[in-house]
């Protein structure tokens, strides 16, 4: 459905945000995983027609995204990484406004749609409240509601769970999991669990390049029996880093745990560990 080919982008300040990115994405929830500054948002914004690439093409369902922006926008739903709201505008007013802009000029249709959306994302009770007063989770649910207006075939959701508290995050992912059928949904995140929970296809992106690509299961299979862990003292981490292929080091109960990548049992007190997406993620971005 969505073919991204050889996409490159360098910003005027010299930062190369995308380096020859090629991805084929089909229907369903696609997870784009990467640390901050990896180029996720650049890629998302480019797909969402908000910025241009220096070279490469993006084609969605026959639409050349970079030249037929207007055409793409007609099938696009976009929840940006960061968005504000006008002061003193209620959720309902805002949805009407966006629905109008999305071409739903029939008043009756629009009214029904807005009502249904508000109900589905559980904001109906707060529909007359100003958006400025919404909590993070409510705001993101509003965001997904507006993205869903007008039967989009391509939905881009950019870091939706950043900044949400755990309960809000769960609730939001729950909502997100329901919309990925028969359309392309691209979810960018730096939270590995999001991808774990939601996606059937994923790519890991670091420093503007796609470094891993595939079904999360397949990716995990590739790491099977290759991750080993050990509890170490804090001042030993540097030594381990130089001796092994260190994937990550994290705190656990006040002590450090290091994960290393090794095809064979490294001994030396390391125990086998079940690989998680987190390991894959860190192995790829380090």
């Amino acid at each position, binding site marked *: 459905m969505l073919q991204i080919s050889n996409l490159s982008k360098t910003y005027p300040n010299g930062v190369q945000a995308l380096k020859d990115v090629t991805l084929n994405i089909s229907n369903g929830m696609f997870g784009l995983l990467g640390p901050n500054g990896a180029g996720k948002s650049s890629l998302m914004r480019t797909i969402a027609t*908000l910025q241009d690439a220096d070279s490469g093409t993006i084609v969605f369902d026959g639409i050349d995204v970079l030249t037929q922006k207007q055409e793409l926008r007609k099938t696009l739903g976009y929840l940006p990484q960061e968005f504000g709201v006008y002061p003193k505008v209620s959720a309902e007013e805002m949805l009407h406004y966006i629905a109008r802009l999305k071409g739903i000029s029939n008043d009756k249709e629009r009214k029904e749609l807005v009502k249904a959306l508000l109900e589905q994302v559980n904001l109906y009770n707060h529909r007359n409240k100003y958006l400025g007063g*919404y909590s993070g989770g409510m705001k993101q649910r509003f965001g997904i509601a507006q993205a869903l207006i007008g039967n989009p075939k391509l939905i881009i959701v950019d870091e939706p769970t950043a900044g949400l508290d755990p309960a809000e995050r769960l609730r939001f992912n729950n909502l997100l999991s329901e919309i990925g059928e028969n359309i392309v949904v691209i979810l960018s995140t730096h939270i590995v669990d999001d991808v774990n929970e939601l996606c059937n296809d994923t790519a890991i992106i670091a420093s503007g390049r796609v470094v891993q690509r595939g079904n999360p299961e397949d990716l995990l299979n590739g790491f099977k029996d290759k991750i080993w862990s050990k509890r170490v003292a804090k001042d030993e981490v540097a030594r381990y880093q130089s001796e092994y292929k260190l994937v990550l080091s994290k705190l656990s109960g006040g002590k450090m745990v290091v994960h290393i990548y090794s095809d064979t049992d490294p001994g030396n007190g390391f125990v086998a560990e079940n690989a998680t997406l987190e390991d894959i993620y860190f192995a790829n971005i380090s």
Partner: protein
Amino acid sequence: MFSSIFSFEVRRLFRAPSTYIYFLVLVSVTYLLALLSAGVFPEAKFSFGGEKINANSPLVIDAFFGAINQYVGLILLVAIVGNAVLKDFKYNTYSMIFTTPISRFHYLAGRFSASMFITLLILTGPAFGMMLGYAMPFVNPDRIGAFMLLPYIQTYWQTIIPNALICGTIFFSVSLISRDIFVIWLSLIIFFVANGVASSIFSTLDQQTLSALADPLGGFAKRTITKYWSTYEKNTRTISLTGLFLYNRLLWMAIASGIWAIGYSYFSFSSSVRRISFRKPKLTESSKINFVPIHFRKDALPVVHPVYATSAMLRNLWGLSVNECKTLLRNVYFRIILLFGMLFLFLVSTQIGKIYETTTYPVTYVVIESLSGTFSLFIVILTILFGGESVWREREFRMSNIIDALPVPNWVFYVSKLTGLLFMQVILVSIVLVCGVLVQLSKGYTNIEFGLYLRYLYGYGLIDFWLLAVLSVFVQTLVRNKFVGYFVVALFYLWNSIFAGIVLKHNFLIFSSDPGVVYSDMNGFGHLTFGFVMYKLYWAALCIAIAAATSLLWARGTERSMKMRFRDALNNENKKSWVVVVVSLLVFVGMGSFIYYNTHVLNDYTTSEQQLKELIAFEKKYGKYKTTPQPKISDVQLQVDIFPTTRGLHASGTYVLQNKTNVAIDSIHIMLPESVKINSMSLDNHSVLQYNDSSVAYRIYKLAQPLLPDSNITLSFDLSVMSNGFQHNFSGLSAPLYNGTFVNNQSFLPSIGYNPEYEVSDNGDRKKYGMPYRATSNAINDSAGKLRNLFVHDADFINFEATVSTEPDQIALAPGYLQREWTDKGRKYYHYKMDSKILNFYSFLSAKYMVKKEKWNNVNLEIYYHPGHEYNLSRMMNGIKKSLAYYEKVFSPYQHKQVRILEFPRYATFAQSFPNTIPFSEGIGFIANVAGDDKENVDYPFYVTAHEVAHQWFAHQVIGANVEGSNLLSESLAQYGSIMVLEREYGEDKLRKFLNIEMDKYLSSRSSESEKEKPWAFADAGQAYVLYQKGGILMHAFNKYLGEDSMNHAVKRFIDKYAFQGPPYPTTLELVQSIRMSTPDSLQYFITDAFEKITIYDNKLTDVKLTGSGTNQIIEVTVDANKWYADSTGKETLATGNNYVEIGVYKNRKTLMTHQMYLLKPGINKLTIPVAFKPYKVVIDPRMLLIDKKTQDNEKRIDKDKTDDKNQKVAAL
């Protein structure tokens, strides 16, 4: 504590590059101003307070220094002082600072004084800029006086520091209270506008003290000191900190301290970022709800059918535009500015149409002009502000990420934003309408012309705001920052409305310009509409192109480099927009060509520079004929057909020319205005056209036989005047009008001989083009000048007869008595004939008139007026009667049997006396509200009428020679007549208000004289302030000093001797002689002082004391009496000799009980005045007979209590 905060802050500001940038900007702007005023750019004529004032005179230094600081300085104060505390909130450092143990006072005082200190350092910039500029080697040395350091120091110390402290305190306190930078900027705007409007309202004479104290920046107070300074004083004196100026400074420093204290007490170390906040707390969902999973079913959403067709977009557009407009109207700042605007509207409405401090009736057009003039500034500010606001809103509220990715073409966003803005302007303009109607109703005026409101406000007013809105949004779309956008638009607006006209000269290069529209009740918008509409179509076409370009370059997405936007704009999706750009640019060019064709081909347009060159060329070519003997016109017979609908004129007729010289004349020179088309022209006796320069319409006819002395020859001519298309500049009375034609003979009929009036009179210009010095007028003993009268060079007194025709619904008029009136082929004809000889100076008028007729002693009195302008007809009628009665009694019989007043459109605002015919502008007097609420109002319709009727004597009976001073014989004497009639009608008390205004006008006008002030007897025609104001005051003084009978007898003797005489014509010397004959020896000095010198009194009442009681009261008065003689630059020398000065005693504030002449020696005089009533105050020269520069110290109240006190003390001793 304080010192560490202070020094940290100062160090920080010293490191900030902006500090140096501000300073450099101030230095360079004033450097340029200094060069400009010092005549470095001769093209830009720039003078401040008179051409003879040095560019570096203390007054100019003060004005530049003060003005720069008032505008740029206030902005700096907001930026630096206003931010001194706010930056802690902006950068979130407050949480660190507020938790340290510093005291609130140390924190605020430290921040305030540090930022104030740096600002004051920056504000020294203008002084350095000016010093540098004036010291440049390439300045014009004539414009520069000796260097003085004192004025810079004085201005800095007296004006800059106090003003910075006052305003800085205000902005600082506002920042403490509101904690919002926008509110501070808003307070700055309000401060600017309030100051401007207040100054226009409190400018009347009797509110001088109040306005001097109320002005926080002290400008008014300073003006009370410098107002009457002469050129000499302006170049040498510095402004000292005394009197009202000192009180003003003290008062406002005290107020500033109070404001600081308020700000201080409001401030606390609390974390709330905004003190004024309407925010509600955040919504939260209870944790219980949070764990309820959401069951989202996409397929349960209703099916919708998005439509992206243009028609659907257009439907959406309306909703979006309304949404935009609503957002603007909901804005708190919008509402605040609007409220202030409306408040000012009502303040302004009290001052509507003031002339002689008397308002006019709130006639619709007057109300519209007055209110929309004030309000347009608000509309412009709001347009600039909200143009930026609406373009940047999405990005500021970070909504753009969502909005920009929606399937909406750029033009929908753009058009909705623009429409919102345009709609906001419609609402603002409607507010003028509503306020206008309210003002009219509140004044009890009910003839509300709604049609005119609609046409004026929406038809002629709105379009300029719309054009500005398009431009404002365009600029905001291109710039990277909203504030840069504001700056660019504001700068362009200033440039366009003030400087572009001077620099570019052609108005089709000046954005949104037009030739000018003036509404007249008589002529409506008249012929001006066509040109206006063409110009606006031209600009509208450009703006549509700009609009389409704006929509193409609309900033969308996260990366908005111009390169990317251009790439997007060239996209195939945008073909239609490009078509719009191209088509509207084609229309723009087409309209431009059409305008050029009208203004430069069909009509003549020359810049003032070109005109100057043409006149110089004319003088060089034909000046040699100046002394060539020419015959004079003795009889005029005319047939003038006026065509109001086509604005044309056809004239045919004959002049009889008589050789009044003693030599034979062999050729006759004839000049005509260039715009006139000559159908035929011939002289009898087989004369031939020997020379014809059609570019300036100069003809020379060679006579077959020379014209011998005293013999006649007849000139016949047939001419047309046509109006084609529209002109580059506002064209008022120059050609016939749809209704209200007023043309005089000099504007379209031939004149005989070289006309020296065409010579360039400005000697600066003459020097530039290598022409010799030319005196502003002929010397008083110039014998050639005495052979010509003041008004016309080619005739003395003539016989006059004319037939005038016009369209049937109008009445056509010319001087003379109506002999016959008939209709022929659908046109009305009027035949007028004069029964006695008149000056060769007459006019033709035609309009849809109503006529008011009365009769007074066999004289027919008629007023031809526009229906609806009946308000003051009886005052005018009364004016005619009282004038005729007085003038016939004291001067001589009236030479005609009719007086007619004829109203003409307000394109010019004067009244002018032709023989028995007085055209009178609708703009003066016809709608004056003399009977209004203020009993002190000057009845100027009455006064102007009396002045013009007096001209039937002083101009039409006695006319002066074409030499210096002769205008006195018409204007000052007419002024004398009208003042006397005014005094008899309204009494001395009311006349005093009039004289007070005249005194102020004289003193302040002489202060900005551009050449040199001449003594009254030698005054030039251009020195109106001498001829009218000083002349009126002095003639009135003669009347009181010599006695009414003696004075009138002196004038009568002069009239008797010179009426209808000439050549040779009389000069002022003859009048002076006649007055001297009626003057006792003791007062001869007074005549000399008045006519031959520039005399200024400076009398002062230093002490008054009341002694005695009952009928034996005596006032002991101490007078400091001084008289000064000024030279032509205003340099004064103390006069010796004694003077008669009147001293009066008042019973109460307004009633003058006794007045008596005293002979006072220079310096201190002690007098005793016995009074038989309870005196209230003593006044020197209570009847305003002397020119006194400072009348405030001429009176002293008799303080009863104090006197009693003293008496008791004396008794106790």
